């Protein structure tokens, strides 16, 4: 049995867990913990990933794709390099409606680029939000090179997640040529 790994990364509350949940054939194995009520994070969401999220897509009897979601908070970043080991490619999720997270998203992108010269795409998530920045503005804001794919995304919609995964796979294929 061959297993292939892709990593979904991005800042806190950018939609990584939602992304994996939308496409995984199994219930996502999540290491989410309740956030303490009086913390700032609690205003954003009730639970956060502390080690990783894990989803699976079976291709056939011999091939399985694993999706690993990284914890978004910096205090769990010791997990990032472990999760990045041997990845086929990675997706950086960005919450398009929260410019305060763009700098962090860029920093995470650079960190993962430094781990390995693996293909990646950037997903401009929450494009259904009224305050969402346009993907092309995000490209400039995050200083993403023109040759890197920056894709509109709504992580709670399966079709949108599928399109992002496909674009990453096409990128991987192009880099193999």
């Amino acid at each position, binding site marked *: 049995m061959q297993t292939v790994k892709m990593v979904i990364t991005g800042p806190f509350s950018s939609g990584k867990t939602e992304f994996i949940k939308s496409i995984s054939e199994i219930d996502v194995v999540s290491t989410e913990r309740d956030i303490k009520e009086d913390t700032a994070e609690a205003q954003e969401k009730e639970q956060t990933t502390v080690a990783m999220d894990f989803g699976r897509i079976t291709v*056939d009897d011999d091939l399985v794709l694993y999706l690993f979601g990284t914890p978004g908070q910096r205090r769990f970043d010791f997990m990032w390099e472990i999760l990045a080991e*041997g990845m086929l490619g990675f997706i950086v999720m960005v919450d398009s409606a929260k410019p305060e997270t763009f700098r962090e998203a860029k920093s995470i992108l650079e960190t993962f680029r*430094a781990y390995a010269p693996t293909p990646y795409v950037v997903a401009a998530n929450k494009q259904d939000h009224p305050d969402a920045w346009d993907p092309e503005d995000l490209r400039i804001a995050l200083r993403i090179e023109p040759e890197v794919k920056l894709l509109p995304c709504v992580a709670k919609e399966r079709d949108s997640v599928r399109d992002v*995964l496909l674009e990453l*796979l096409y990128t991987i294929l192009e880099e193999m040529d």
Partner: protein
Amino acid sequence: MPLQGNLRDFSTTQLLNLMNLSGRTGTLTIFEGIPTGEKDAMQNEKMAPGEVKAKVVFKAGKLVHALLNGQASDLVAVLNKAGKLTDQQAAIIRERAKGTTDKALAVRLIGANYVTKADIVNSIQQYTLDVVYNLMSWREGPFRFEDNVLPDNDIIMVPIDLENVIVEGARRTKNDEELLNNIPNLDMALKFPENPKEKFKGIHLSVEEWRVVSFVNPKNTMRQIAKANNMSEMEIRRIVYGLQQAGLVDIVPPLGADGKRVTPAEAQSRSTGSRKRRTQPGPTKDVVTKLIDRIKSL
């Protein structure tokens, strides 16, 4: 949808870069921040927009007008500030020209030989730049950019290329944290964007900036360029930040001697001789094609 955020997260220099590269037309408004008592996703105090503090207008990616709230920005005030009209002349003209638009007044002042057309253009340009350089020192404040919203037709708008403004703004950046955040890794390399000749036309660079530009090559990391030019880490960051924001260079992973892309970690290990990464054989094209077919079927 309007573009909005806080200067704390997205600086004036970065906004100018965005306007420049996306060729925007519209008005950027910066507000007084009113604490909401809530925290944002990065645990900073959330700010709601309060009173308007400044407005900056762009046309097709060029800066055309800027004003600070509470500061007179009419033509008489601008010419007075530039020393083209004395206080006494300004007071008289203001009294006589009540209700006259700036454009009509400009024609009358030129006709009466008070000022030349060049005086008006240069004074407005300088006034606009002064406002924008002032804004570049602001570290906080909600902003909102609305596409295609322009001020009254009466205002004289003088187009200013943003590249020089951005480079000058970066020279004035005293905030080391902003530089570190924007250029965290000096083991990345630099390359020129498409049509570099076109981009460098009319750009006024300092000697230090030209020294960095002369080393721009995807094989040279910023750390190597700094070393070759005897610059500190913050000096090279400040220069690269200005060049990058003005769209004159791009930051890219470095190329090895063989012309292949290497990771910044590898670039660092090549220069320090430390830290070897484990490489693994990757999946074949056949595997990737199978994955594509499977994902398509979902």
